[in-house]
């Protein structure tokens, strides 16, 4: 008898654990989803911190529409299947708006769910052009320019400014890197002004890259356009420079990161990378970074300013539209301008941010300098 009741109780208890705690309350629910653990955590954690700083600031001023804002952070480790889980979870808990996700793949996976439930989703970092250009996701916005804009900038710079004729396009076989590389190759081929002498993918985490580097040398490329993130970029650049090759290295915003310079050290000198327009003089930017330093003790990481701006934009839209309804918020995002660290922005009818663009930077004397 005892065995039976104890087993029954165990089963009941387990079932009970599975019933989510009902959330009561008059608060604004802001979902923040992204990679908060795993190897891409350094891309997702700064966004959570950005949201926390913004929400703290806004709550201290009375909140949005008189209600406090509550952050629900969900971790998807940049994995699509986890992203759908987190999306479902947020929906179940009745989230109002979502700031996220971080990686394009995860965002794509989750967007379908948010779309069905009419939840506005704004990403600070998902740059896949499809997300806004395909028209499939009318609920999606972002505070970062899409990949084809970056690739366009890189190619134009290479052709018109540097007047290059032979270019090798390399990528890291990932969604982001390969996407960029494909665009770059397409633009180069269409222009007819330069030859794509090599188009290769390297395996991130491989034991060594000397074979590819030697292949680059053999192809006699004047420059490498690389799509990918800074760890592989620094390995490539170091390898290239150690072999005494002067190949120009042009890359994307995954590489325009101070960490790249710190890791590649002297080999980083002269590397070009596209990145969001320089906003370091903007007083909001200065304050945001200072706040981060004060609360967390170090400099903010990737996409911090984008996430900060996204949170501001979302909460501002709720405030201005006076409601948390989908159509009202969407309207407000498209019509109202909002002051953010990235500048004064609003959103176009596809979801891209108007007023957020890319510039080309170069590493000079150990830091990135905008190339005019």
């Amino acid at each position, binding site marked *: 008898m005892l065995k039976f009741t104890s087993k029954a109780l165990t089963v009941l208890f387990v079932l009970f654990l599975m019933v989510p705690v009902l959330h009561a309350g008059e608060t604004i629910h802001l979902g923040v989803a992204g990679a908060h653990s795993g190897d891409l955590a350094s891309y997702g954690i700064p966004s959570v911190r950005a949201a926390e700083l913004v929400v703290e600031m806004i709550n201290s001023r009375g909140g949005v529409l008189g209600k406090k804002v509550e952050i629900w952070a969900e971790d998807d480790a940049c994995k699509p299947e986890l992203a759908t889980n987190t999306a479902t979870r947020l929906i179940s808990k009745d989230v109002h708006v979502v700031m996220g996700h971080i990686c394009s793949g995860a965002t794509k996976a989750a967007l379908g769910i948010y779309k069905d439930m009419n939840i506005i989703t704004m990403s600070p970092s998902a740059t896949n052009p499809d997300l806004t250009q395909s028209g499939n996701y009318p609920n999606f916005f972002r505070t970062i320019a899409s990949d084809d804009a970056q690739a366009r900038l890189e190619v134009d710079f290479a052709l018109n400014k540097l007047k290059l004729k032979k270019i090798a396009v390399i990528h890291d076989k990932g969604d982001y890197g390969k996407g960029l590389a494909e665009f770059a190759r397409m633009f180069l081929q269409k222009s007819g002004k330069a030859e794509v002498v090599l188009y*290769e993918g390297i395996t991130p985490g491989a034991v060594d890259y000397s074979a590819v580097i030697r292949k680059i040398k053999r192809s006699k490329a004047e420059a490498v356009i690389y799509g990918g993130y800074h760890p592989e970029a620094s390995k490539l650049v170091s390898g290239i420079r150690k072999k005494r090759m002067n190949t120009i290295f042009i890359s994307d915003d995954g590489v325009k990161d101070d960490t790249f310079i710190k890791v590649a050290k002297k080999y980083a000198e002269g590397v070009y990378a596209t990145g969001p327009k320089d906003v370091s003089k903007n007083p909001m930017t200065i304050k945001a970074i200072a706040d981060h330093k004060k609360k967390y003790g170090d400099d903010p990481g990737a996409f911090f300013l984008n996430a900060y701006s996204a949170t501001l934009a979302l909460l501002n839209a709720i405030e201005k539209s006076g409601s948390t309804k989908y159509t009202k918020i969407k309207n407000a995002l498209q019509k109202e301008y909002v002051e953010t660290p990235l500048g004064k922005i609003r959103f176009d009818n596809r979801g891209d941010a108007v007023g957020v663009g890319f510039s080309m930077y170069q590493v000079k004397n150990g830091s990135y300098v905008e190339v005019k």
Partner: protein
Amino acid sequence: MILSESFYESILYFFELFLSGITRGSIYALIALGYTMVYGIIELINFAHGEIYMIGAFIALIVSGIMTMYGYAGLSVFFTAMIVAVLYSSAYGFTLEKIAYKPLRNAPRLSPLISAIGMSIFLQNYVMLAQTSDFMPFPSLIPDFEFLALIDYIIGAPEVVILITTVIVMIALTFLIKYTRIGKAMRATAQDKKMAMLVGIDINKMISITFIIGSALAAIAGVLIASHIGQINFYIGFIAGIKAFTAAVLGGIGSIPGAVLGGMVLGLTESFATGYVSSDYEDVFAFGLLVLILIVRPSGLIGKTTTQKV
């Protein structure tokens, strides 16, 4: 000129790819030796071995970080980091065996395998949480040698060091296995555990020694490759581990020269595949090669059964 410019270039290119291949192959070989030795003695695929390699690299990073901060540089840092990394990796390997594998010595074959996979996940996350998930730059500890200055666009100092170290290690290991008492005892344990016990060999000690040596080799590989590439992170063990394991099987698991041969073959295949075809599919080539070789020679290139032959 008897030979045309481009012919010379092609030869040079081939030679460069060859060099890349054996550099890579040496790293695979060093790690593969650990796999093959452990397999030879307890018939276990030690999935956590790649993590030992990674830990070796991290320990070296920590040591060299501290030393450079206090003003030391150059070769003294390199050797100290190497020695400390080897010591610690061996300790980790030893502990790993005691916790996760020894209790399962009499268990069904698959249980230690799952335990190994679990330890692999555990160690990866342990380092990630205790240290950082970022890529950490690794100081280039190998100074540039003057005599290489002329051809260093072909071959750099790290590559030379890797090759020389691998050769030295190979010779030392062969000597150990073939001509010392301990080597004999290890071979005996690998051949037949019960008999070895009966003739008075302490098999627990032998197994521990195997793990220690294997881990030491992995640590050496870790430090070398970290100096060469310049960056490490907690995940490098996984990929290197799978590749090295493939190399060990390719050569014939349980066979020491097999591990070296397998490593070289794998490294060369990848290098030539990248150089002449496309680096997109270099891994597909590597695994495809494995399948082909195993179809033709089901026990690997020079593998016999599970004994540790030299």
